[in-house]
Structures are given as C-alpha cells and as structure tokens.
C-alpha cells in the first residue's frame, strides 16, 4: 500500500514519520523549501515515545508517483483549499482520502471535490508542534489517530491495510467503527476548550479560578453537546462525564493549542472549530451564547492581527 501525506508539519510529520519508521511506503508531498530541509536534515522527530531522524521520500507535486492508495490530509483547516489543489493530481479512482482535521466542515468540501466514496472520516489526538527549525516536537504522553468509514459499513481494503500499518507504529487507535461519533466527541472537547481558553486567555485552571469560571465552562460544553445531539451524535452520559471532568480540573495547566496560536500571533482555526459549531447551533435552533462570545473574541483577534496590531500596545 502506498501512502501520500500532504505536508510534513506537526501531525503529518509525526504520523508519517512513525509509519515510515515501521516500514510503510510513505511519501511526503511538500513545498520546495521543506523538501530541501528534509533532504539536508532528514525528518527529525523529538518525542516522548523516542527521538528519531530519518531520510524520507518527498515529492513536490501530486502528479509525481501517483495515484496513491491512501492520501492522509493533515493540513490546518484554513489551508484546506490549497491542500485540495495540491493533492488532486495524486487522487485516482481508487484512492482513499483520510482527512485528520478538526471539526466536520471539511468533509462536505472534500466529498464535493473528490466524490463521496473516496472520503472517509478521521482525526488525530497527538500533542505535537513544528519547531521553527522544522523539528517535530511531540510532547504529549499520548499519540493516537482514528479513522473509518463514515457510513459505518465494514472498512474498505485500504483502511484495513492502513490500520495494520498504524498498529505497527505504536500509535494508538486506528480503525474506528463509529468515526463520526468519535469526530463529534473530539470536536465537543476541542471546541469547548478552545472557546474558553481563547475567550478567557488562560489555562482551564486559570478559568476555574474565576467565580463563575466552572459554570461558564460547563455551559459551553453543554452548548456543544446539544449541537452534536441535533446531528444524532450525543456522546451520552459517560462520554460527557469524561469531558466535564477533564475541563473542570482545579489547577490544570492545560490550554487549547489555539490559545498558544493567539499568543504567538499565528493564524487560528476559528471558523472551522468554533464558527461552524455556531452555524450548526443556529441551524438547529440551539442557543449558544458562550460560543458566540468566544467566536467574536477570535474574530476580533483576527481583525487586530490583520491590521498588524498584535504585539503592539493597545493604547
């Protein structure tokens, strides 16, 4: 099985690097500057699960070496359009596209572009970042990906093979029987945490120090749960109990990566993670005042960033 990975950034670099390390046939589709760096330095992973530097296969265009059996899409949501353009030549009639993005909005966009049947569901749970030097820094104790058929039917051959390849890497997860539910579970957690950490500009522990921090956090989780339930994907009491207890741990230093992005003046997946949740809430007639406030905060950030006002005094 031949796998193409778009980009060798944080998630793509980590997952692709581990697949390559365990013998899978992996090719990275990258830009010229990244290719040069990878040829010079190799793909460098520094990880809680072991460091490694490897020589990896790279191509500059999707036409090279394609079509592939599996294309792993690990871009940020705001880069989706250019990512689609980049992978299009690599997608043949029998290619399966596995997007590992946050949220849900990309699924419809990808299905419209490549055809429903080629697009499966997928997500990543890896705490990983790309250093300015291009090193993949995996800092979380966990590393998992999850993928599967969106209609819940038995997995196609490519996914079964991908599952076998992932099992060899030490990355947890793999093939999931109900990937849509899993995607909602992750989105509820991510959207709640990102909304609150950004709106309050602090860790979950900082937020819980405010008189009404916990109440506001739990309201936000509930807004997201209702949106999921309207889509037929309520995580249920046990799933929600996990989310709630994780987000209400006193003294927690945990913050959404989106907060780190804000504080670095970087681009953020505001529309994809928060905006789309609000759009679905509105469509289903669900009130989402906390998400609305958080989304306004993110839009204000983007407006200030666009005028070059981040990092300069507000006064």
């Amino acid at each position, binding site marked *: 099985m031949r796998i193409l990975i778009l980009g060798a950034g944080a998630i793509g670099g980590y997952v692709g690097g581990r697949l390559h390390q365990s013998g899978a046939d992996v090719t990275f589709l990258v830009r010229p500057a990244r290719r040069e760096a990878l040829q010079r330095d190799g793909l460098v992973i520094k990880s809680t699960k072991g460091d490694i530097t490897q020589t990896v296969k790279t191509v500059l265009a999707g036409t090279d070496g394609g079509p592939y059996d599996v294309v792993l899409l690990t871009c940020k949501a705001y880069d989706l359009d250019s990512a689609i353009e980049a992978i299009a030549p690599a997608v043949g009639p029998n290619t399966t596209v596995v997007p590992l993005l946050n949220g849900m909005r990309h699924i419809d966009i990808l299905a419209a572009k490549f055809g429903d049947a080629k697009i499966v569901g997928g997500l990543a749970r890896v705490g990983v970042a790309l250093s300015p030097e291009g090193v993949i820094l995996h800092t979380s104790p966990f590393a998992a990906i999850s993928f599967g058929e969106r209609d819940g039917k038995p997995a196609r051959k490519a996914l079964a093979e991908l599952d076998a390849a992932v099992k060899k890497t030490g990355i947890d997860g793999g093939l999931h029987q109900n990937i849509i539910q899993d995607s909602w579970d992750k989105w509820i957690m991510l959207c709640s945490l990102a909304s609150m950490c950004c709106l*309050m500009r602090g860790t979950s522990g*900082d937020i819980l*120090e*405010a008189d009404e921090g916990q109440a*506001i956090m739990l309201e936000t989780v509930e807004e997201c749960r209702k949106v999921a339930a309207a889509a037929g994907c309520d995580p249920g009491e046990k799933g929600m109990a996990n989310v709630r207890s994780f987000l209400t741990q006193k003294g927690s230093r945990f913050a959404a990566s989106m907060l780190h992005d804000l504080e670095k003046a970087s681009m953020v997946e505001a529309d994809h993670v928060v905006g789309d949740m609000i759009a679905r809430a509105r469509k289903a007639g669900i009130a989402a*005042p906390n998400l609305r406030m958080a989304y*306004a905060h993110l839009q204000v950030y983007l407006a200030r960033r666009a005028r070059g006002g981040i990092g300069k*005094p507000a006064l």
Partner: protein
Amino acid sequence: MKILILGAGAVGGYWGARLHQAGVDVTFLLREKRAETVRRGGLVVKSPKGDAVVPVKVVTRGEEGGPYDVVILACKAYDLDSAIAAIAPAVGPDTTIVPMLNGHAHFATLDARFGAARVAGGLARISGMLGPNGEILNSGGSGVSFGERDGKPARPALVALDAACRKAGIDGGLNPDINQDLWDKWVMLGTIATMCAAMRGTVGDIVAAEDGAALMRETLEECCRVAAANGHAPNAKVRASLEAGLTQPGSKAVASILGDMEKGGAVEARSIVGDMLARARKAGLPAPNLRFAYAHLQAYEARRARER
C-alpha cells in the same frame, strides 16, 4: 485654600500640575519612590495643551502636614485601602475628600472611614498615561467633575476648587448632579472595559467582528439597565452619543484596562466590571456580557498571580 493630592499619575499628576501652574497651593502625597522622582525632576507633563516641567510640593507618609481644605484621591481602586491609610492624618474635621475613582464601590468604604459629610463626589475625564520615566503623557482630555452627592448647594471648599480649576484651564468643575455624571461615566467605562477586556481589542477591532457591534450594544444596554435600577439611567442624548462612539468602525478607542492587561499590570476588575455585575444581580437584571468579562478579568488575575 490648601489642596492635598494623593497620587501623581495621569489624573492627579496632570490636574495638580495645572493647579500649581495657576498659583494654587497644591501638595502631593506620594510613595517614596515616586516622591524622589518628582522632587528631583519636577512633574513632567506632555500634553497637546502645553508641555511643562512643574516643581510641585511633595510630601511622603509621616510628613503630611495639614489638615487640608481639600484632599483629592487620585489612586486606582485596588489601592484604596492604602490610600485611605495614607490620607487619614491629613484629614481634619473640615476637610473635604474628593475621590476621583471609577465606579461607586469606594463611596461606602470612604463614608465608613471619614463620614459621608466629608466625602464629595468626583470623577476625571483626563485621558493619558504615565511614560516609562514617570512623565505624564496627556492625550488632550483634561476634564474633571465634582460636587455634592446629596445635590445640595456646594460647600465653600468645592466652590473654591471650582474657581481654581477655571484659573488652571481644567474643563468641567463643579457639577450640580455629580451622581448622574458618575453613573454616566461608569456606564461608558463599564461598557468599553467589558468589551475591550473580553475581546482584547480596540473598539474598531471589536466592531469588525460579525457580532461585535451587537455585543457592544448589548453590553451598553446591560450597564444602562443597572444605572436605571439605581435611579440614574443616562438620558437619551448621552446614551445615543455613547452608542455612536462605541460602535464606530475603525475607532482606535480602547479601555485603559486593556493596556494594563497587556503590560501584565493590576486591573480595576472589581470596581469597574465586578461591581456593575453585582448590582445587576441585586436588581435581578440579566448581564451575560458583564459576566463573561468579569470571568475573563478574574482568569487574567489568576494567571498573573501564577506567572509572576
């Protein structure tokens, strides 16, 4: 008339410097470090209304002198307790205290300590900040407002202070309805502080968000309803002018609390936002935006304490 001013920041420093220039008998009560700077180099004022280096009289704790006819309290709300301790020796039976703090919460504390009769109402519309070397960077606004809180004719000390302000080119002065003015300012400040803090941007940045102007109007409504519940709703003209200013596209206006946050400084969270929220609750009024902003400010304070 002898005036003591506690604090030589953007408000007290500017006002006192102009009074001194106009020949008024002004003394500053300052902390050691600030006292030393001002004694050495005078009060340095940079303002569209004229730059100046003003050699003012400075005392520190233990050498207050007094009693004074007027004590102007120009500290931040979070420094109120230490400010009260500092001015107490300078306050005599006939002294009038003019607090220039934001909000309303300080009145109960001052009344309890000095008796309501000695505490007048006051507020500043002096815009500016302190520069890195303690210089007063005034951005042009230079108004003050003070008066009797019970609405009765002003006592002689306030009349004299009014005359001194006129001589010094300070706008405003004696206000026959200082309580309304205090509420009008608090409504404005409560709204802009709530939004600039919770959104971390200027008015222009906020209005650029899809729901930004709507959130600003909702917040203004929350504050106006609290003012109304306290018998001091802003009149239609004031409200319209507030709303226009707070929803102006491209506006660079920003609450000073955001500047404080971005410098990692202390913030007047409780007096400007927290107390407005508490009064909304007491009156049974919904105030969701004030609630978000107060949580934001408290999370900021928790993080500030953690990271220091």
